[in-house]
């Protein structure tokens, strides 16, 4: 699971109102080199919840120099875009689980794939 995906995911357990962002408890994380595409990163930045991205990067120990707030004029800042690219697309959670911050419900991640299915009582 990449952090771009994590940034868009929310807990959908019945009755939960504060299900975002999901906590990440990773047991295996991999770095995967992905070709840097500044246009794509620039396009994604406005869609992100920035604080959730920082929190997730920190949980995985991959925050490095990512600032706590978005820098202005980021489209032209290649160094910044490269940092964002790395955290969004190159850090992958292979094993672990996502956890609903309100209910504590865990969603396992196996072989890099989250399983978001709920049981009938929770749906």
């Amino acid at each position, binding site marked *: 699971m990449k952090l771009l995906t994590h940034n*868009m995911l929310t807990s959908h357990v019945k009755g939960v109102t504060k299900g975002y962002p999901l906590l990440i408890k990773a047991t295996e994380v991999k770095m995967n080199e992905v070709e840097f595409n500044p246009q794509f990163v620039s396009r994604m930045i406005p869609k992100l919840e920035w604080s959730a991205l920082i929190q997730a990067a920190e949980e995985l120990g991959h925050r490095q120099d990512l600032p706590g707030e978005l820098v202005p004029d980021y489209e032209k800042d290649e160094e910044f875009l490269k940092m964002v690219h790395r955290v969004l697309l190159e850090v992958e959670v292979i094993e672990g689980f996502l956890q609903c911050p309100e209910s504590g419900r865990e969603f396992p991640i196996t072989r890099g794939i989250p399983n978001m299915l709920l049981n009938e009582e929770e749906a």
Partner: protein
Amino acid sequence: MATTLNRSCNQYLIHLAQDNLDFRLPVTSFMQHYSCRSAFELWGHGQTHSELKTSLLNYPLENMLPFMHKDSTYKINVYTFNKTLEFADRIKRIDALDYLPFEGAVSLKSPEHIFCLLEDYGTDPNNIPEHPNYIYFGRWIADGQRELIRSHSVKNRHFIGNTSMDAGLSFIMANHAKVKENDLVFDPFVGTGSLLVACSQFGAYVCGTDIDFNTIHGKGRSSRKSQKWRGPDENIRANLRQYGTEKMYVDVMVSDASKPVWREAALFDAIITDPPYGIRESTRRTGSHKDISKPHDGIYVDSHVPVSQAYHLSDIFTDLLHSSALHLVMGGRLVYWLPVYRPEYCEEMVPLHPCLRVISNCEQTLSSHTARRLITMEKIKEPEELDSLAHMEDLHLSPYQGHNAFREKYFSGLNKRCGKEEDRPHVNGQ
């Protein structure tokens, strides 16, 4: 019922130019999500044949040559969307491709390699242009060449039989959705990911979900049991890798499309999908026991998937439209297949949503009484509280509710033909 909803859209038939009925290959497939989607390796494209030629001449020669050497056999199929071509015209187009380095021998019956030339003549059957709007050329990769995921059921035949057209259709769907470089595209019923493969070849970043754990993980392939697991998702991700577009892979997840996992924001530039058609257990969603009307339909116990209930067809589309209205960017498109029972189909059956405008609606006939329609919708409005309540009522009264009987109607027609209960040909045309 909101009368302001815009129903004007084009309806038309897809004319397929099939030059050889031998091409109807029987494929062993069963459920939607185990079906073997074919894939199409795009080599070139353009708005004119001249642009196509330029594009093809830019395609790396070393990627072409393995499929064209003199000891191999091949065949070229010409497909047209919204136009019928005469045999002679098809031959002309094949001959016009002589700038490609074909060295092998032509074999119509059993070629080793199959190439496809696809011409898109737009969406208006009353206004068919003389020249195509868009042309694609590529190599068809049949899923029959990959290991099939076999189920316990008997062999099934599918009706349209034209799996390479399906591969071309992925590109047409991506085109209808206006997928372009740097887009983010989502498929909520991703299956084996062929739609995502097509989108990735247009330069879009792709993600998908599917309720079936095994399909998403690529399980069931015997070669994997002896193989040491190398990395995440040997299925869809591996498909992208095969076409050199692995960098466009974002993620796939096991998830129930009726219970979206995305936060409420405009995230995707396009949503492209082929939802299950509601035949036996191929439509599922999580739910409680008390909601189940037909207890023996689709219940099974599996450590990865909770007890599921029949997912009514009309609900699939209600959820799909609602989810698209929420998660598409303004101007973003939803493109999906809608199964119809032809004797009863009318335009009013196409599901509507106040935030989405129908751009086009075209039929692909599957059999005498079934078809599927390729629906394209564009987001024109952000959903508000009021809208979500209003539209839920609208869709509840939608005539498409009657399509929950699609399953029964489909099988009654089928039983007349085959006279066998266990014969369940797959409507998806794989």
